[in-house]
């Protein structure tokens, strides 16, 4: 396989390995583009920016599988490796000033590694002058790990949480999509025409319920102590409700599992009987979102929690249009805890904070029957 026939195939494969879901067809697009002279405009001056731009237009999309950050990281690594290789082959070749500098080698002299920790100081830092014989820290090949260039890379703000403001609003859009409900008030022209076509003459009109967008959201938040660290991740949702971007919506608190009472969001000491909340729900309109770990942080499930949750879900499910359980603990940590059981009862309606999962759940079709719960497995 010649590199001329398949140019930059190694780059393409590196991107695939890093998690971009690129198809052979997309590689072919690059070949076509190169064939028409795109991407190599300044190749003579060893400028990779045109190629980077072309590959970005072809392969990066607004989706997790075509993420721009993966692309930039892999491309940087690729260019660095290639440059190194070229330098090794032609050590005297002048490397022109690149517009995007290579990964900077550590310039700082501090902090230094204590001399005793390394076998030979001279080998590590042979070029330092006499007065400065201490070794400097050397970049090691942490391949695959993103490098944090600035301290600010470690600061998280609510916009960067897995559940972004955008996702919250998107999923609300999906959840409140219009449904046909109520009395048959609207003339269904297509069905009427079909009936005329079938019968051969006009007998009667076909009516259907009007489509309406009347969803309301009820959010039940577990505010037990174990859930405190996850609170910032809920902030986008709470904010969206507070500034009425998601509305009508209501927030309640509970601890571990909701029993007879829920607690007001603004005034946590004020109890609201669960019966009253359930009585106000509407089977075709109310969407309930539960925020809690469902016992995922506790290895030995407590029997009381299990029965409590079961009773609660049994009472809740006939009253709602759909139910989503958001569990901030990653799904791989649920195994062996109560969370795995609850996820089983809920039949896939529990998700961790993955954007695609949340959106998929928000999109789930609304059935006319009552919400389905799987029976708990008896012997556990």
């Amino acid at each position: 396989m010649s590199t001329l026939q398949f140019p930059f195939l190694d780059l393409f494969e590196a991107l695939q390995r890093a998690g971009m879901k690129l198809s052979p067809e997309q590689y072919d697009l690059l070949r076509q583009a190169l064939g028409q002279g795109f991407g190599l405009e300044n190749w003579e001056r060893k400028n990779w920016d045109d190629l980077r731009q072309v590959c970005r237009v072809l392969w990066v999309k607004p989706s997790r599988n075509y993420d721009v950050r993966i692309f930039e990281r892999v491309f940087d690594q690729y260019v660095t490796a290639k440059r190194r290789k070229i330098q090794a082959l032609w050590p005297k070749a002048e490397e022109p000033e690149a517009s995007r500098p290579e990964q900077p080698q550590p310039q700082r002299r501090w902090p230094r590694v204590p001399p005793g920790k390394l076998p030979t100081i001279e080998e590590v830092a042979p070029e330092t002058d006499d007065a400065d014989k201490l070794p400097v820290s050397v970049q090691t090949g942490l391949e695959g790990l993103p490098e944090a260039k600035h301290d600010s890379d470690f600061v998280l703000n609510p916009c960067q949480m897995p559940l972004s403001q955008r996702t919250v609003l998107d999923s609300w859009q999906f959840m409140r999509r219009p449904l046909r409900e109520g009395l048959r008030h609207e003339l269904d022209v297509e069905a009427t025409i079909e009936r005329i076509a079938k019968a051969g003459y006009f007998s009667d009109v076909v009516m259907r319920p009007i489509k309406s967008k009347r969803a309301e959201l009820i959010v039940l938040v577990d505010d037990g102590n174990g859930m405190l660290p996850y609170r910032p991740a809920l902030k986008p949702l709470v904010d969206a409700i507070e500034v009425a971007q998601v509305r009508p919506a209501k927030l309640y608190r509970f601890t571990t599992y909701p029993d007879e009472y829920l607690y007001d969001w603004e005034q946590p000491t004020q109890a609201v009987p669960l019966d009253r909340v359930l009585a106000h729900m509407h089977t075709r309109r109310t969407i309930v979102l539960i925020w809690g770990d469902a016992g995922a942080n506790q290895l030995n499930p407590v029997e009381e929690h299990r029965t409590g949750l079961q009773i609660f879900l049994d009472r809740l499910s006939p009253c709602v249009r759909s139910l989503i359980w958001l569990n901030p603990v990653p799904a791989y940590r649920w195994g062996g805890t109560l969370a795995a059981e609850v996820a089983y009862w809920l039949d896939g309606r529990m998700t961790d904070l993955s954007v695609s999962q949340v959106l998929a759940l928000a999109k789930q079709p609304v059935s006319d029957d009552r919400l389905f719960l799987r029976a708990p497995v008896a012997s556990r």
Partner: protein
Amino acid sequence: MTLEETKFYTYAESDAAQPPAKGVRDPEGREYFPYLPEPGLVKALNLAMALGRPLLLEGEPGCGKTRVANALAYQLAYKKFKGKPEKKGKWWNFYIWNVTSTSRAQDGLYTFDAVGRLRDAQLMGTAPERLQDFLGDEVEDLKKRIKDKAEYLSYGPLGKALQNQTDRPIVLIDEIDKADSDFPNDLLLELDELRFTVSELDQDNNSIGPPTDTTKPIVLITSNREKPLPEPFLRRCLYYYVPFPKRRKLEEIIQKRFEEKVVDKDELVSLALDKFDAIYDLLDRQPGSRPPGTSELLEFLTALIEDDDTETAISELHNLANEEGAYLLGALVKTQADQRAVKEQLGASS
């Protein structure tokens, strides 16, 4: 396509092929304004044209996504007819499909007036002898119409672009994210193979497209990221994120759009841009807020420049947070919460 044809379908930033500053309208009422593209955008456009793929443009609202298509149409017409289209009276074939929340993929291809045909058939069928009384001279039209199903067919923007073309027409699918989430997926086949069938017509003449290389439409799609787009759709598109123009680009854009109106108003423009930058930075950092875009900036400047008295305009700018400048702030910041935040910030800094 020959090499020359490939060369023809390129877009470049050029001063000659720009519409006049005040804009022109084509016979169909579309407006063309000067457009200063970013180098990356130019390349993405050229790549999409060369590969014959749809180009998906995303970016903050008001950063000029939709205007790209107009600019391209204007430039292609300029090249083809060797002169400004408004002078030559010839325009490039350019179809806009404004997607709304009720749009269906089918609408872009064709609609078939089944009810109209049913009405005609009933008119013919129930009382043919009395038709003359009802319709008078239109009877012949009716008879002709009912024999040909194609008479009830009207093509949508994409449907028109796929037939009877001499050059590569431009199709703009604007704000695709407004539609139902299935909408982009319903368009996959049509965008991929550029052909469709009209199921209402007879089998021998119901297939439209695919066009040849020389008449293949240039498809541009814009999205505001209101909804995520499905992956199979994304895979078929090239993608470019239109960034918000930098300060220098903004200055150029202002020069191009206002020309002589901003002569001797450097101080005003630079102060306005300072205020704009401050507001942009503030709202950009705030979750849930949307910073103003280029189009809002242009409105803001229009309001300032229309003021004949530069001194008053400058004093209004200084008092953006107070009563005096309130009407100006409204052009940039659209929600009450954001206005309050901006006022606090500006009030604190001045």
